[in-house]
């Protein structure tokens, strides 16, 4: 079966990212960071269990001390709130900015490819590389299955939330990469933009009610956290997908501009 050209580009991009020394460095660093987070929350959970066993009146209530609340959701929250902001720009910064800098973009544009094929391929490649980074969660899942009894459906919903948020961030990073000429500039602007996207809503807690409601609607973090806590909220899924699509549509128009601007 012949794959669409966008799939070819995606596979080539992912391979270029993961099978390169810099890609391995990115993936290895992501694994170290995710491992640190996992160890931190696991140790905290163990301490809480010991403390609760010593002082039964500290029992946390109906939910008890559950591995999903203390370790799985927290690992996803820290990953989404910190690691994605740092690592997604590293995966997307080169997708277009590097091609523009080296002049390869003109070469690519001269191929019988539509802009959407190229964009889907680049976004798909970065997203696949991100999924490669997420593969550490398989190891962590194996460890958790060995030492405790997690609530797997809730964990899968959390992973879905992390994946959708990752896709949104990749779309944003790609858009920034299209609009800039240097990978470093793309990475810095993407990190800043993602930081504002994620933490901005928390910074305006004293704004008027209507503004807070509007910002709450646009808050990626609260939607992401809802999913990681094990709630499959269709509104959150629609928001994350819709926002990604809007960013991709804008990115495609940006690519049009770049194509004709030369």
């Amino acid at each position: 079966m012949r794959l669409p050209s966008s799939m070819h580009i995606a596979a080539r991009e992912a391979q270029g990212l993961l099978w390169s020394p810099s890609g391995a460095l990115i993936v290895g660093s992501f694994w170290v960071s995710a491992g640190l987070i996992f160890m931190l929350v696991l140790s905290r959970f163990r301490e809480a269990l010991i403390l609760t066993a010593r002082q039964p009146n500290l029992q946390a209530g109906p939910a008890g001390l559950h591995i999903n609340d203390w370790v799985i959701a927290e690992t996803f929250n820290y990953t989404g709130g910190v690691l994605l902001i740092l690592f997604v720009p590293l995966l997307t910064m080169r997708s277009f900015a590097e091609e523009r800098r080296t002049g390869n973009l003109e070469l690519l544009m001269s191929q019988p490819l539509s802009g959407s094929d190229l964009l889907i391929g680049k976004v798909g490649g970065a997203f696949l590389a991100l999924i490669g980074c997420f593969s550490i969660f398989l190891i962590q899942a194996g460890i958790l299955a060995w030492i405790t009894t997690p609530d797997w459906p809730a964990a899968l919903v959390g992973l879905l939330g992390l994946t959708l948020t990752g896709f949104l961030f990749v779309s944003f990073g790609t858009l920034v990469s299209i609009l800039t000429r240097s990978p470093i500039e793309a990475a810095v602007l993407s990190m800043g933009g993602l930081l504002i996207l994620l933490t901005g809503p928390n910074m305006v807690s004293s704004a008027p009610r209507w503004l807070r409601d509007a910002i709450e609607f646009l808050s990626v973090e609260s939607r992401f956290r809802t999913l990681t806590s094990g709630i499959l909220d269709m509104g959150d899924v629609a928001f994350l997908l819709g926002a990604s699509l809007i960013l991709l549509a804008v990115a495609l128009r940006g690519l049009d501009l770049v194509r004709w601007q030369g």
Partner: protein
Amino acid sequence: MMQESDSRYLPFLVLSAFLFLTAGFLQSLSGPEAIPPKLLFVAAASVLVLTLVRAAAQLRHAAGRVRQLAEPGPSGTWLLLGLILMVAAAALGLQSIRFDATERKIHELSQTSKDALAEVESDIEMVAFVRDNDQLRLRVDAMLDAYRTTVSNIRTRRIDPEREPDKAREYGTPQINTILVRAGDATEVVDELLEPDVTQAILRVEDPRRPTVAFTIDHGEFAPDRPGFTNFRSQLIDSGIDVGRLDSNDLINIPDHIRVVVVAGPTTALLPGEVQAIERFLIRGGRLAAFLDPGVESGLEDLLESRGILLPNNEIIDEGQLSRALELGDDAVAIAALGLADHEITRQLAAGVVLRSTREVSLAPKPIFGTNGIDILKTGNRAVPVEPGTRTANGPRRVHSAATALEWEANGPRTPADGVAERPYGRIVVVGDSDFLRDDLFGLYGNPAFASRVFGWLTEREFLLKFPTFNFAGTPLKVSGSGLTAIFYLQLVVFPLLAFAFGFFQWIRRR
């Protein structure tokens, strides 16, 4: 979408974003009234507006170029689909469709709560006061989310009183680990953060009938409108209680709207007819608060004994250090926090209670069938019962009880409220002292809180709701310290090293 020559505007955009973030960060640290964050906000907005104005021509030009040169493609479709999904997300925010994927179903309310709250029409505000780093936080967040998404007119908020004291003060001086439930002027504070208590509180504030507490007055009792009790009276009224009086004529046939009859410090005994009227009132689900001083026959002794509360005619003299340290006289009795029972009235009291000239009150060794009681105030172990007047010891030196709380199911009418019936049950609180309600003692230590919680408990309404048993189970962790170390090396050394080695191999190969 700026051309290269226009990239000079980028630093200004970044500066504006940086100023916005710094302002927000400073405001979260210094509170909403601080001036510097506001100045930074103004500066950030000014930079943004000026940059956009200066770059307006370039932005228009870029947009025009896009319109002219864009190739036909799916961007319009993507944009439309994205907007449809965003509108759907907004719609789903109003009427959410969500599935609780957890096995424990911790994000869903029980069917009992859903049914009970289906008819709630008022706008309800729920504010939780929990520290951000408290282990309760996760559970409280889940609970607030569950209420917010189940009942459309419930708004929720969580405040860390230590990090956001200004916001906490907007709600009075809330205790930590409580949820305040408010509908209009009706407010209730829930300190047992469990679904049954929160649902009951919502139903109560939704139908905020002010309870009436009536004081008997014809036997030398104090009444709240008499001099010397202004603080106590103010506290009752401020907590949403209507205060009334019952003379002998009213007492014979206690009106239905009265929820609690109070007999506070009588100096002569109530008449048998009056006691019988109180008995009938209790049988139909009324509540009684009796503050009975030593050396006085109140007339209520037989009634209370028939319900399992003993009132020996003696006075407690506490020779413990705590009571003596008060320097209020020989008859002062300090009930330390350790002497407070694990009961709704006393559980959350932060300070002990100070009584003066106190009568012994205790539950009978064999409780009356169908009643549920507990001695709520216990002295230290150096308390001695003495005969009032002569001060002759008539019992051993040990812990004695100075107050008792009792409740039982009653056969009274079930008042429907919002389709949910109220549970009829009677309650009695007997305290062996009335002096602590006087202005000179009322402000001491935990006295006002104790009085408040006594009347809160007595006036409480409870709805007939049957909640399912909650799953308290957590998850075990079958790993030792050395197991954790192994996991550490696997996570942080083995797998990352494999990735780095692969990268190094690729680098060597390319060279």
